[in-house]
């Protein structure tokens, strides 16, 4: 592969790579650093790329190895990360001041319920063991096949399937207990609370029912609800979406809180 072709292909994959790394690290800074390091490493090793896998698989392999190194010494987040961070935000007047400032000045600061669902998924997925989180995102959001994920993470296909199953089971359990959008007895109402804060004139119930996951909450099974949730994540680029600036601010806040908490 020529350097020119590689650069062109890399540019086409950068968006997905960056969003994947953001969702795994929850850090814009780390995600961008790892994208850069992936480019450098891939460029240096381009002569070893033989086309046995796709270039995308190869680049995600390099990036995943780097992200595993990045997270090796860091602890996983607790399942109730959103509760802990909510409490921290409420005790920090600066958080909402900054958020309203972003809302007033950025073109990517619309609060959308779907965007918050995707943001929440990112945060809660960091409570999974890293292998499960990586497998879940690679399969369900970035649409790699099991065989490709096995290559990316240097696992057997059997282990990829195991981690996927475990990751899904855990996420279903967590959201079933927490998310008030899919379960009337869910304990987390952040989507409606934040919607009320940022869009005070909007009627939450009228807006949420437009989201397929909410609409189907009482009729489909838990596995399908998780699929619908991950479809939302799949459809949003956390850097390019209409709510990116606001959600990245929230994510940075949560990451800082978790660094002190865990």
């Amino acid at each position, binding site marked *: 592969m020529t350097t020119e072709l590689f650069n062109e292909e890399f540019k086409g994959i950068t968006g997905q790579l960056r969003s994947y790394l953001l969702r795994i690290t929850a850090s814009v800074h780390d995600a961008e650093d790892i994208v850069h390091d992936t480019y450098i490493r891939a460029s240096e090793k381009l002569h070893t790329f033989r086309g046995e896998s796709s270039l995308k698989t190869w680049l995600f392999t390099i990036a995943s190895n780097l992200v595993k190194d990045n997270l090796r010494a860091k602890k996983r987040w607790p399942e109730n990360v959103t509760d802990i961070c909510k409490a921290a935000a409420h005790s920090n007047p600066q958080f909402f001041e900054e958020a309203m400032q972003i809302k007033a000045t950025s073109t990517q600061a619309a609060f959308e319920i779907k965007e918050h669902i995707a943001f929440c998924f990112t945060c809660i997925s960091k409570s999974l063991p890293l292998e499960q989180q990586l497998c879940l995102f690679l399969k369900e959001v970035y649409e790699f*096949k*099991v*065989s490709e994920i096995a290559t990316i993470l240097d696992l*057997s*296909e*059997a*282990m990829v*399937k*195991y981690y*996927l*199953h*475990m990751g899904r*089971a855990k996420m279903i359990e967590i959201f079933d207990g927490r998310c008030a959008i899919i379960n009337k007895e869910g304990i987390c109402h952040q989507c409606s609370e934040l919607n009320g804060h940022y869009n005070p004139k909007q009627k939450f119930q009228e807006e949420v029912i437009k989201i397929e996951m909410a609409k189907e909450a009482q009729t489909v099974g838990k596995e399908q609800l998780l699929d619908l949730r991950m479809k939302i994540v799949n459809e949003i680029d956390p850097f390019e979406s209409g709510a990116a600036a606001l959600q990245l601010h929230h994510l940075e806040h949560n990451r800082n809180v978790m660094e002190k908490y865990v």
Partner: protein
Amino acid sequence: MKRLFTVLTIMISTMAMAQNGKAITEKKTFSRTTSVSAEIKADPAIIWKLLTSALDYPRWNTTVISIEGTIAAGEKIRLKSTMAPKRTFKLKVKEFENEKCLAWGDGQGTRIYTLVNKGKGITTFVMNEKIGGFMFPMYAKHIPSFDASFEQFAADLKKEAETIQNTRK
């Protein structure tokens, strides 16, 4: 070598007599041995992971209430079973051969799990437990049959492992 021979003997006799998840129990004066065998259409790595992930047992296994501790060679675990919900069994992991053989037990008995990769995506699972001792005749009649519990264990393991194996590619 002796242990391997014992395990192989158990497996061969069990497989011959207890196919498709049906438990068999052999009673002797000073011991009782229950065995079950099942053909599972899953990679042994998946089955091994299920058998050795302590905290995850209650999710897939209806015969286990909880297991505390780490299932690894030489480690101690605390197991609560639906067969005796008020008891906590303090067990030691006696054998731990990756994807092949797991055994745990206490002074009164040992349970052995064995996996044999038959190829073509099939693994034979054998679970065998021998309880007994010098005082066994005194309390044997008070210990309920393990047959139903063993059959349920094997069925739960088969179902969970095959579900994982059949994850869409």
